[in-house]
């Protein structure tokens, strides 16, 4: 009982450390630096400690300090309570989705079963969708409570876009669920031990559509009409300053990590290394003894998992800095008229193929 709780706490602290403590801040730097390098610029490199700039990594610290010490003001005529509540509603679901995301398999360490997921729910994937759908309210409430034309327009667009792509996002992964026959993310991950059982080979169309709608769900370029800087100032968070403004960005970056993690689990073989099954890995570390071998395999798997996640985040960044923004009617057309029928067709084709193979 207590030891389980302790293990859970360690996992939670690890997840929070890696998202809030590592990915979210570092991605603010990566976004600037990577875009700069892609466009033959230099990027953030000025913040220094004692003249030492470390490639501009200290911008993270300066950003954090700046956000916390800026004036936090609420505009006239705004609904104060909802205005304060909105960033919290946006950030909490982003963090909560990590509860069901496994970042490794199951290992036996010193007689203790360790399952590298915070809570191994049977409804795993649906949990992610349900919680992610709650994040919509953060943006709607933010726009509504700001008493600003840009904010309200941005939030209407955000809500419309997010709910449209929620449908396609749900439909595109039905194929994956049919193939693996489970919704528990740990089981989907475990089912992909062999390289040719990876989701990307079994559901290539599903992968492309899911990737597109996931980016749209996260409102990043090319689907960033809700916060289009050049037309709507900043969309729903125009009236936010200081750390509340930062929280919306944090939610966005954490959602990028979530998308990366889910795509890794569904399509890229989760924590498995191609052509190297867990048993082979264990036998390779046999000389360490049972528990230490398990520990080594666990560390390798966690490393591989986050490596894949990093790669997918890199892909999202590349997409973001390659494609121009779509018009709003194009976004809606893509969601409703192209992705929705295609994913329905994908479901039916997958069904027929599975039936034919059995």
């Amino acid at each position, binding site marked *: 009982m207590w030891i389980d709780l302790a293990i859970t706490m360690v996992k939670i602290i690890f997840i929070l450390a890696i998202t809030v403590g590592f990915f979210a801040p570092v991605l603010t730097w990566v976004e600037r630096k990577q875009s700069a390098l892609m466009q033959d610029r230099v990027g953030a490199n000025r913040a220094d400690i004692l003249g030492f700039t470390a490639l501009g990594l200290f911008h993270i610290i300066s950003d954090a300090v700046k956000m916390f010490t800026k004036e936090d003001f609420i505009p006239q005529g705004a*609904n104060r309570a909802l205005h304060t509540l909105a960033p919290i509603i946006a950030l909490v679901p982003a963090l909560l989705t990590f509860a069901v995301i496994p970042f490794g398999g199951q290992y036996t360490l010193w007689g203790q079963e360790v399952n590298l997921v915070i809570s191994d729910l049977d*409804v795993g994937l649906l949990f992610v969708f*349900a*919680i992610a*759908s*709650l994040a*919509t*309210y953060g943006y709607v409430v933010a726009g*509504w409570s700001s008493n600003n034309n840009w904010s309200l327009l941005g939030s*209407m667009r955000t809500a419309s876009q997010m709910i449209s792509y929620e449908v396609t996002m749900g439909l595109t992964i039905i194929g994956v669920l049919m193939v693996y026959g489970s919704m528990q993310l740990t089981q989907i991950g475990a089912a992909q031990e062999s390289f040719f059982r990876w989701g990307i080979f079994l559901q290539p169309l599903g992968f492309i559509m899911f990737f597109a709608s996931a980016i749209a769900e996260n409102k990043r370029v090319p689907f960033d009409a809700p916060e289009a800087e050049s037309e709507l100032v900043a969309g729903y968070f125009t009236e936010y300053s200081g750390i509340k403004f930062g929280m919306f960005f944090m939610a966005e970056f954490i959602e990028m990590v979530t998308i990366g993690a889910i795509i890794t689990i569904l399509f890229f073989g989760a924590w498995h290394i191609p052509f190297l099954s867990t048993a082979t890995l264990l036998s390779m570390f046999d000389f360490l003894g049972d528990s230490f071998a398990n520990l080594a395999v666990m560390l390798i798997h966690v490393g591989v998992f986050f490596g894949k996640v990093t790669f997918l985040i890199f892909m999202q960044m590349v997409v973001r800095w390659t494609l121009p923004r779509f018009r709003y009617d194009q976004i809606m057309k893509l969601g409703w008229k192209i992705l929705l029928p295609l994913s329905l067709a994908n479901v039916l084709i997958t069904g027929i193929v599975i039936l034919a193979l059995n």
Partner: protein
Amino acid sequence: MELLIFYPLALVSVGLAMGVVFNKSPIGSAVCLIGMMLGLAGVFVLLQAHFLAILQILIYAGAIMVLFMFVIMLLNLKDDDKVWKVRERNVWLSSLAGALMVGVLYKIVNITAGAEFNAPAKVPDEFGTVEMVGTALFTDFVLPFEVPSILLLAAMVGAVVLAKSNVD
């Protein structure tokens, strides 16, 4: 142990439901209702209806309430309609309904307080999971599964007719 989880959840849900009724602005009511639905999802988890709990969040809190939010934003009510107002004529009806409710409550407690329902039945570990609910739905309840499609079709057509006729 379960009581300790149930009571806060129930109290919060009831409080938020009261918040829906007595809130000044419709958007406040909507936020309260979302909170109540999340609380109910917690209660469902307590009852081992895992799939239904997720549905509660996904459809009720995540979809239906979005529609409410949209309509509140869409209409942008006059100040007169925004504030809380009692309907004048229903005082007698309300008090009658209240009396009825108390009676019903009393009856329920009377019936179910017996020993028969005091402890839940022994259920298998996978009770209420997606697989079990799905199996029940797609084998025993095929007709109830197909009927909502007609309902949804009707709703789709109706919504388009109602909304589009105002646009054209």
